[in-house]
């Protein structure tokens, strides 16, 4: 029975060691519990409340009833009114709205001549997220009871749809910029976290503490090489995306690099914070996974933000990846600039500064 006894001895030892490593033990329970609850609700492709804008050139009873009908579907949420189509297009580029409904000045005429099967209005749709754009394209054939007094052939759509930025609705166009966010989240957080924890494990830190080296100097010195690594990864991903998957790179390089640098900085500080908490490289890795999973699933990379319930959206807002997915899609696909996506830019900037302060304070230059 030596065989089973020896296996039992090892098993018992493993359990004992696991129960002493409280962080790992916590992760064993927390990862499935929290993540499942979160994603069970979050992963939902029934999109609702997509933010859209309206250009109502008709300003008539008919246009108001169409707007009411569109609002009643709950698929969209009219948040902006633009006076002209040009301004509406700028709004899409800036990421203010996902789409704009344009109701032309001759709307009433078109509604009256229903037999000519002219579309009543036009949807201008941001095609950079395919799930969102299909939900909006679904509205082309929505029934409009108010205006059904006269016969209207079912075959002709009520609205016309125009897809901006990704007219062929190819998946790589949507995925590649988002993938940049996921890959950077993974490598940047993991690299910094383990780089510092490794020195703790090996005892290098004890030597560094007695030198004139300051905490902030150590932190910044650690971060800089990873910034360069991050930029190298960005170049590889976007080049590959462009030349192999034919993803359009519409943004200016300076904007792309700027957005990426902001995100790298935010991810690295998150890695630093993890490194001040984790005692072993294994713990650092687990904590990285804990951040990585929601960054993949909640950031809008795989599932649109609009499809998530409120609580999931709040969590998504706290993740740097969510902001970066928005920014990088905006910059790469829509040629948006960082200053018009001010909300996301300032979130990443603030996240980095606050994170750096926390990490420096937590990494005390003593062994207490």
């Amino acid at each position, binding site marked *: 029975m030596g065989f089973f006894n020896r296996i039992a001895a090892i098993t018992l030892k493993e359990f004992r060691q696991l129960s002493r490593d409280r962080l790992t033990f916590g992760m064993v329970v927390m990862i499935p519990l929290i993540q499942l609850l979160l994603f069970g609700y979050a992963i939902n492709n029934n999109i609702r409340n997509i933010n859209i804008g309206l250009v109502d050139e008709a300003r008539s009873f008919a246009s108001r009833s169409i707007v009411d009908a569109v609002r009643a579907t709950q698929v969209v949420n009219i948040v902006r009114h633009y006076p002209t189509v040009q301004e509406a297009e700028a709004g899409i580029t800036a990421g203010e709205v996902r789409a704009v409904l344009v109701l032309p000045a001759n709307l009433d005429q078109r509604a009256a001549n229903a037999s000519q099967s002219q579309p009543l209005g036009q949807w201008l749709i941001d095609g950079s997220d395919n799930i969102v754009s299909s939900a909006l394209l679904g509205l082309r054939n929505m029934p409009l009871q108010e205006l059904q007094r006269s016969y209207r052939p079912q075959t002709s759509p009520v609205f016309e749809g125009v897809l901006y930025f990704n007219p062929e609705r190819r998946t790589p166009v949507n995925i590649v910029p988002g993938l940049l966010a996921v890959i950077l989240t993974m490598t940047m957080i993991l690299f910094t976290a383990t780089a510092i924890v490794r020195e703790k494990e090996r005892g290098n*830190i004890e*030597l560094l503490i*007695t*030198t004139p080296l300051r905490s902030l100097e150590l932190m910044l010195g650690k971060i800089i090489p990873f910034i360069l690594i991050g930029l190298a990864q960005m170049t590889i991903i976007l080049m590959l995306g462009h030349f192999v998957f034919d993803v359009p790179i519409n943004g200016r390089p300076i904007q792309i690099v700027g957005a990426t640098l902001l995100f790298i900085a935010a991810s690295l500080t998150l890695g630093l914070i993890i490194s001040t908490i984790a005692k072993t490289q294994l713990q650092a890795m687990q904590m990285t996974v804990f951040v990585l999973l929601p960054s993949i699933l909640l950031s809008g990379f795989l599932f649109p933000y609009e499809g998530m319930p409120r609580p999931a959206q709040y969590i998504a807002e706290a993740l740097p990846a969510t902001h970066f997915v928005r920014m990088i899609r905006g910059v790469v696909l829509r040629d948006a600039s960082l200053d018009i996506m001010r909300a996301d830019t300032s979130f990443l900037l603030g996240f980095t500064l606050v994170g750096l302060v926390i990490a420096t304070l937590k990494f005390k230059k003593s*062994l*207490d």
Partner: protein
Amino acid sequence: MNNIAIEARELTRRFGSYIAVNKLDLRIPRGTIYGFLGPNGSGKSTTIRLLTGLLTPDSGTVNILGLQLPAQAEQLRTRIGYMTQKFSLFGDLTLQENLQFIGRIYGLGRSVMKQRIEELLTLYELADRRHLLADELSGGQKQRLALAAATIHKPELLFLDEPTSAVDPENRRDFWEKLFDLSDSGTTILVSTHYMDEAERCHYLAILEAGVKRADDTPQNLMANMDANVVEICGPNLRQLKQQLLQLGQVKSVAQQGVQLRVLVDRAVTDPVSQLRRDCVALQPSHQLAVVRPSLEDVFVMCTGDRS
């Protein structure tokens, strides 16, 4: 500029309910090699960490080279060197890269650093290994590298935490030669150890046990002023004899060393040999007894109250 390098008063540090260092008073003159001798867990490492500012004391004051700790800890950094118990340089950097890294941290200029590294590599006989990774070095070489790194900025005060626990006696002797050279050039050295031969080389010695200083003086004075005489006994049946001797009140400690017993007898006993013959029935005429010169180990045993 006074000639005291380290002055600590009532230094105390607790870890939870455990008192690692208990009201320790220290006064270490400049230019000396001062040893901390004590068993594992006696508070040697904790004391060094308190004196280098790595740990904050719960109470007590520390003055190092005229600076108050922990308030002025940062100012002190460039003036002290610290060699950790565990090798703490980077195993995946070469010897030369390790020294360059430490040199930059201490803010040495390019030409000064280059010259200093050459000096150190020659001094510590590492010049031909400069391109080896630190992990590929032997125990003795690692140790010399660590000493080179700890002294690259020519510190006035050097802390060595059990520096020779991982090397053979020959390397240990060479290592001490280097320490004497450093001391000769004016560096104050504080070294912790649990090796008697190493302790005996120090100018001054403090014997620590359970966070308390039991004695401190030069090794010679410690041996001369010991509270016991040492009697060596040769003969048969040493194991049984040891048990018998331990029953006697005046016997402080009995230890077997090969074919003889080393017995520590209270100093109040004027003629320990005849007294032992009188009191211990197990002693036979065939046993040879002689009073011998005390060793540092005897002092250590007396101080730490070991009666095994």
